[in-house]
């Protein structure tokens, strides 16, 4: 026995693994599987597509450009004048704009995704780390320190270029303006608001003191700790408009959520009627050929208006069905060899 073992000491193991005989499923894309499969998938897709398309159709969207470069535009006067220029944009809703309504501002030709722009921020600073207040990240240049070498907080191009037009919406009821209440909370990512962005811990009970030894961004009219002096939970780095702005857009034409309309008489939506939007026009876009607009939109179970998704499902679904038909015809004509048995 022992000798026998020695004689075959080199004998390879006889296992399914070493002999490459692992049990295996060997699928084959034969017509028998593919035709019904395609048919099923096609049907399902068409169903989903119809649902998505109809849902999308039901979403109401209202867009108004207020760049003001055309002379008949209500904001035309503001394109040249000093800051805090006001202009009014009027529009009419012919039927109820179902709530909750979302109010966006949109910019186009604006490259928030420019690499140098995108990295020009200091996340450590924005998380309230005071060491970075004194010495902001080098990526923030040229908005790292001001001409007197005092560090800028929040530093960097993104913060510096924060959108600063403001809007107020009035419902014209019986010739009188009735302000539509805007909800400025919950427009930013929950995690941004609660985790990622932190104000520095208060010094002497004020946020202002924590910002000592720093200057506001060059383009800002007021420092970060005065972004919303009325609401401390919306002030400083936690200001939701600031948070929304700091999330850089992927593409040069983008819109950002400004307010939600969820309160008061307008919780169910904007009733039909005339509306007037009061715009405080500050943000210059004409210098780089950009445009500004506002968007009112509501939302469905699958998100905002997106007709293409439904269409894509319909197209692919029908293609699947058509292909399964074609295959069936070819199948009948050529009598596939593998289905003969």
């Amino acid at each position, binding site marked *: 026995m022992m000798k026998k073992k020695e004689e075959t000491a080199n004998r*390879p193991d006889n296992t399914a693994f070493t002999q490459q005989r*692992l049990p295996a*499923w*060997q699928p084959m894309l034969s017509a028998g599987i593919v035709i019904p499969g395609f048919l099923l998938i096609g049907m399902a897709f068409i169903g989903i597509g119809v649902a998505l398309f109809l849902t999308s159709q039901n979403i109401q969207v209202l867009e108004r450009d207020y760049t003001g470069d055309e002379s008949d535009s209500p904001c035309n006067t503001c394109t040249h004048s000093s800051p805090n220029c006001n202009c009014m944009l009027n529009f009419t809703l012919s039927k109820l704009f179902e709530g909750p309504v979302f109010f966006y501002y949109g910019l186009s030709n604006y490259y928030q995704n*420019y690499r140098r722009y995108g990295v020009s921020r200091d*996340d450590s600073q924005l998380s309230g780390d005071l060491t970075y207040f004194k010495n902001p990240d080098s990526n923030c240049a040229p908005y790292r320190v001001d001409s007197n070498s005092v560090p800028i907080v929040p530093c960097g191009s993104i913060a510096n270029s924060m959108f600063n037009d403001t809007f107020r919406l009035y419902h014209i009821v019986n010739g009188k303006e009735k302000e539509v209440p805007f909800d400025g909370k919950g427009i930013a990512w929950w995690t941004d608001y609660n985790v990622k962005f932190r104000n520095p811990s208060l010094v002497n009970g004020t946020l202002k003191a924590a910002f000592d030894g720093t200057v506001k961004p060059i383009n800002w009219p007021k420092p970060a700790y005065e972004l919303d002096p009325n609401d401390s939970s919306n002030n400083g780095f936690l200001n939701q408009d600031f948070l929304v702005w700091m999330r850089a857009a992927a593409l040069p034409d983008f819109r950002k959520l400004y307010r939600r309309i969820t309160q008061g008489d307008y919780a169910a939506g904007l009733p039909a009627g005339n509306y007037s939007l009061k715009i405080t026009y500050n943000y210059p876009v004409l210098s780089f050929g950009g445009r500004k607009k506002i968007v009112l939109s509501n939302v469905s179970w699958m998100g905002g208006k997106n007709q293409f998704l439904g269409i894509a499902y319909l197209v692919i679904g029908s293609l699947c069905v058509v292909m399964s038909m074609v295959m069936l015809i070819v199948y009948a004509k050529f009598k596939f060899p*593998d289905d003969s048995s």
Partner: protein
Amino acid sequence: MLRWIRQQLGFDPPHQSETRTVYIANRFPQHGHYVPQKFADNRIISSKYTIWNFVPKNLFEQFRRIANFYFLIIFLVQLMIDTPTSPVTSGLPLFFVITVTAIKQGYEDWLRHKADNEVNGAPVFVVRSGSLVQTRSKNIRVGDIVRVAKDETFPADLVLLSSDRAEGTCHITTASLDGETNLKTHYAVPETAVSQSVSRLEALQAVVECQQPEADLYRFVGRITVTQQGEEIVRPLGPENLLLRGARLKNTKEIFGVAVYTGMESKMALNYKCKSQKRSAVEKSMNTFLIIYLVILLFEAILSTILKYAWQAENKWDEPFYNQKTEQERNSSQILKFISDFLAFLVLYNFIIPISLYVTVEMQKFLGSFFIGWDLDLYHEESDQKAQVNTSDLNEELGQVEYVFTDKTGTLTENEMQFRECSINGIKYQEINGKLVPEGMTDDFPDGSVPHLSREEELFLKAVSLCHTVQISYDQTDGVGDPFPRANGISSQMEYYASSPDEKALVEATKRMGVTFIGSNGENMEIKTFGRSEKYKLLHVLEFDANRRRMSVILQSPSGDKVLFTKGAESSVLPYTKSGEIDKTRLHVDEFALKGLRTLVVACRHFSAEEYEEVDRRLHEARTALQQREERLAEAFAFIERDLQLLGATGVEDKLQEKVQETIEALRLAGIKVWVLTGDKMETAVSVSLSCGHFHRTMNILELVQQKSDSECAEQLRRLARRIKEDHVIQHGLVVDGTSLSLALREHEKLFMEVCRSCSAVLCCRMAPLQKAKVVRLLKTSPEKPITLAIGDGANDVSMIQEAHVGIGIMGKEGRQAVRNSDYAIARFKFLAKLLLVHGHFYYIRIATLVQYFFYKNVCFITPQFLYQFFCLFSQQTLYDSVYLTLYNICFTSLPILVYSLFEQLVHPHVLQSKPALYRDISKNSLLSFKTFLYWTLLGFCHAFVFFFGSYILMGEDTSLMGNGQILKANRQLMFGNWTFGTLVFTVMVITVTLKLALETHFWTWMNHFVTWGSIAFYFIFSLFYGGIIWPFLHTQDMYFVFVQLLSSGSAWFAIIIIVLTCLFPDVIKKVFYRHLQPTSTQKSQLIETHQGISCVDSMCCLSEGESGCARLGRMVERLIGRCDPTRVSRSWSDSDPFCSNDRSILTLSPVEGSRC
């Protein structure tokens, strides 16, 4: 004379002189002009590195690889300039790749060092200062006197000085050098032959002068000058005086020789080609593809750079108010900016060249090669040897072989001849249990009884046992130098050696039948017939020559009769017979030949006293003739070998290895041309060729042999070419011998190749080792550049094994030189079929798909990045986070392809082996043709476009907007931001790329399931984890909760599903239509398996069925990983999948029989 030599040497620098002068025992002349020559020491070096040069040399070699060098450049660029990604993203993988490769190569070289040390450290005995000193082989210097004992190999090329025999002869066998197993006699010059002891050698004063080392084994020119009593005696030295390193001393107790060529200068070492790195065809096309991708990369980078500057020509784009530049940026020079932008784009797109391709390929090759060693079908039970992989670099080349060059002795044959049948006096006999039994009768003699032989039978046996040139080697213990040992110890101590294995087999056969050849001492031959000793006086030997194709001996029998025995090819003996059963014998010979036996016809002639006198006179005259000796000898032979009495014929089987014929047939069906290259004689070679099915009986055999001049050779070649053209219906076989070959190759290479290509089988005989390599190189470099494979077992095959694309060593009897220098080693020739047809096929398909897939997935990966530049002002913004950039190739998409490339089986191995023609499906590197490459690349680009623009459009038809709601917290419509967009593209990409491979996978083991679904799951889990934490060491927290945000959007899910399906949809359609309308033979044969119902659907179910499946999973894993010993097997393998059963015999069943189980 000596002075003249000295003068010669004095004027010529030593290393340039045409001759080398060796002072025996290094006793240099005391006076006179003497310039010491420098010789190499006796060290054999096959290793590539030393400890000192390993790091620089290895790094240098690795960076010669285009991909490694490329990544080094990228890494350096990232270090130097401001780039979108950090140097770590390319530095880390590069470091990993380089380290892994260096460790692997270092290990391999360490093994070579070990082997070298073994050879160099072997003990040898050298005469130094008057005594015999034991030292190591590497310490032998030129001029040392070396003592070699019986059965030892010579440690260096030695000039024989003396042996234990008085006449100074010794026998050696050169089996490991040229494959010839017969004993060869070598001689010492008489002046030194007397120096048989150390003390006498001490007194020897001699100088050997010989040519500088050269590779030809059979050429040696030199002279020895012996000084005896002040007198100089000069003797010529030839190859018969030279004992080659690697040869073995036989039949001689000990010899003394002086080393003339040592170490790497020995003829054996010179016959080894230096081991060059072999590259497979796949690797070559891989490099081509890499270059194409490099061009694509450069194109994209240049285009991006140009567009960037075209875009930035207007100031409002270049520097809008929100994105001011720093002073430094404004002031740097335009050209510098341009260059640094270009480099930044290069870095951004650099992932299109897949760095992990090399690592994955290397891992795949390394791990995959284990399957060869593990294969039970490649395991040889008798010798307990399994297949061995020396270089895993060439696995896939096994699937590409177009020419097989095989050695004959020991490769096709067992190197054993066996007597099978004979025909005596018109009656056929067979050998049964060592007795001669007439055909049709059974062995009815009880064991031990002495059979009665008829007179004819006895004469025939005597003729066979006397007419030969066999020599006998006795055991060392007794009877050295005594040709007639004691009668009782014959069988155990005697071993026959013959230049022709047939003779050996015949003499051994007659010995078994009772007529034993005991020995000869030059004058007498003694045989023992049933215990009765008879002495024959050997009068003349009429040696064998290729023209006569017969040999004869003239003997004086004990009774005083003079008799001639002749033995030879039937065509050269039968015409000269005049009595005996000529017709019947001829019939029998044909029958033997049809059975594949090697036939010889035996005849005799009795001389009367007068006749013999005449014969003797003629022979003497011819032999002593000074002019035209050869013609006169031939005349004399013709005069003697006539009026013969036919005794009978023999049939000897050159024992082929098992299943050689089937293997060669299978290779031929697979479209592989088989060439036999042998050092053997033409006759032997042709007959083996016939019996192993290399040549068919129906083949028209063309000969290109014994060409002496260039023009003659050319003429013959032209004649052959013409014959082939005229007669193209039947197959042609070509026989070439070494000398004709070298003539043909020198001037008429083209013509020769043309002839060869139209022959279905080629046999080259009388080949020197380097000539074999030359033939291989000739084929290799011919216009079609076919992939060649050389297989052999002896040292004489080493150069050919190293020259061919794939070298395979047979673990045979002739040492392990071939195995050591081979890429793969197997125990038997028949294993070649499985090695090529199954393993080669698998490896090729696996690696080809691996390579194509790698390029595909990197195109998918990087093209969206490129497209994104059009939307971000060509600012080199990355679409994906740098962690994703780094991990895409390393983690998310690496395992499925690795597992695929280890386990994929497009067709069942058993089908592959039974249908060799499937091998043609993958020939000529078809899966890596430019067409398929283009298909995969375009597919990659298409998918990338769908990923990018699909995400682009689907995320909001408003072209810009990321309006999206959340299912979980309805009433919110937040913006996504650039990282979410990138992550969406990335998610779609990972899923599509993984599923694309799933579509390609035909063999789903549980591991494929695990890694395919596991990779996707891992991606999701990793992303959740990566995005779920604020990473303290990262400076930016771009990815924080991005992935969760993405997944919390309902339309994102819909988008992912639709984009993935859109990508795969056309692919599925294409596959179905191709399969049904234009199935390849591989696909057709896949159907065969399906009909046998092998599908192991539960391999999938056990992972996807949930609870009930998981319960089975446990059993499954146990089954798969645990050893399947028979008892366990019968229990655990379900009846539904017979092919998974462990019974190996099932694998050999034909499809029809398969249904039974």
